[in-house]
């Protein structure tokens, strides 16, 4: 029994390693996960160089792009889970000694270091574009973890419910658009105001961006009000994702 328990983390890590390889070896994932945020950063910095806009100043823009880039991780995680369900790969693994927790952690955990690597690349490019090198870059990368958890768990949730085609629409189009419009990365939400602003602040996207901006600026007091909404949403979505994954597992 003791040796079985010792084996469990190793089994989970074996499965997590496989999930990481599946994501990292898909060229489209690399293109969208790293290439797209970097291109956006370069493009908007070029615009900023010609027509200065405070919103697109590198210290303001880089944290927003780092958070926006996480929305692609939802698509990666959701596609992986949905494809595993459709191809009966999960069905095969359900007949092995892997247990529910191994699957859930195996899908969630490998995407978190990918998220950190993605944001590190984003900040490296930002440094090349003039972002001052400070220790706050490091804390900003780490401060992305709760938002990364939210996006990755949302991927597990969608992958547990939808098929590959639906996942492409919901995570690839809907979530990335919501993440763009309601995050204050591309335009100042104060300029729109009203119900739009209220809705945006009721959701986690703008909180994740403002938290990231404040941490990068080294302003902890400004960051604090945004911690609870981001962690709260991450916890709630993770909880729902676990329930829905278990439900589809039972359905198998």
């Amino acid at each position, binding site marked *: 029994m003791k040796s079985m328990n010792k084996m469990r983390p*190793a089994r989970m890590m074996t499965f997590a390693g*496989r999930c990481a390889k*599946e994501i990292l070896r898909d060229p489209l994932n690399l293109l969208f996960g790293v290439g797209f945020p970097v291109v956006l950063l370069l493009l908007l910095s070029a615009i900023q160089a010609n027509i200065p806009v405070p919103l697109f100043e590198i210290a303001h823009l880089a944290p927003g792009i780092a958070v926006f880039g996480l929305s692609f991780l939802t698509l990666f995680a959701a596609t992986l889970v949905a494809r595993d369900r459709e*191809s009966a*790969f999960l069905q*095969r693994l359900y007949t*092995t*000694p*892997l247990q529910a927790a191994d699957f859930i952690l195996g899908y969630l955990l490998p995407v978190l270091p990918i998220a950190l690597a993605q944001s590190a690349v984003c900040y490296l490019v930002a440094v090349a574009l003039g972002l001052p090198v400070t220790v706050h870059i490091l804390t900003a990368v780490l401060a992305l973890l709760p938002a990364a958890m939210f996006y990755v768990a949302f991927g597990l949730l969608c992958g547990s419910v939808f098929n590959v085609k639906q996942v492409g629409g919901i995570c690839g189009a809907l979530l990335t658009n919501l993440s763009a419009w309601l995050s204050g990365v591309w335009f100042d939400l104060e300029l729109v105001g009203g119900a739009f602003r209220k809705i945006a602040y009721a959701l986690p996207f703008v909180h994740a961006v403002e938290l990231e901006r404040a941490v990068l600026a080294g302003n902890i007091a400004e960051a604090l009000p945004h911690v609870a909404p981001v962690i709260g949403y991450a916890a709630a979505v993770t909880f729902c994702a676990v329930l829905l994954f278990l439900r589809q597992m039972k359905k198998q």
Partner: protein
Amino acid sequence: MYAINTVNLTKTYKDITAVDHLNLQIRPGELFALLGVNGAGKTTTIKMLSGLTRPDGGDAYIHGKHIVHEVAAVKSMTGVSPQETAVAPNLTVRENLALMCGIYGFSKEKQAAKIHQLAAQFDLQPILSKKAGKLSGGWQRRVSLAMALIGEPSVLFLDEPTLGLDVLARSELWDIIRALKGTVTIILTTHYMEEAEALSDRIGIMKDGRLLVVGTAPELMARTNAERFEQAFISIVKGANT
């Protein structure tokens, strides 16, 4: 002791009885084919026996272990090759095999030995470094079958193993399945008559969740006065309508 013993095993989905009071005994080392048209209950039977689906009634035992109350023990004794090709597409064949070894908790030495053994057994050496998703359907089935054997199961479930394969790939897979006969108990579902006839020791024919008959191919042909096994199958299935 039987390798598989089911007693009134039943599964219903809403108002459909997918498996209806199945009573089946399969001996260790036997290759048993479950034959039937679509919706006969073959896949549901395999899902229940491999611990994937919980039955609604009756009991079933794999080497004396109850499929619900001792599911961990059942899982450790069974291997499944699902109907769809269940491989990790972006992993190489070697990595797919290593993944299953890791899941079963093999040491590095045992993993290397197991991959070497299966590569030789299934002629996988030329494709070990190729991504599984890039292989033809026949090779993917071969890899899928090898993956099912990694846990060293005493009972192997093959759900429609040659579905969609061309004649050559099917024939090659038959050779592999024949070579496994006697070393492991195999339950094979298929709706290819010639496959059941060529490979199995005994055949069970299912329809609408019920097991209509069990016997060897010659026994079933004699029972229906049929010259060919396909005729016997049609006669048995149609006879069940009346």
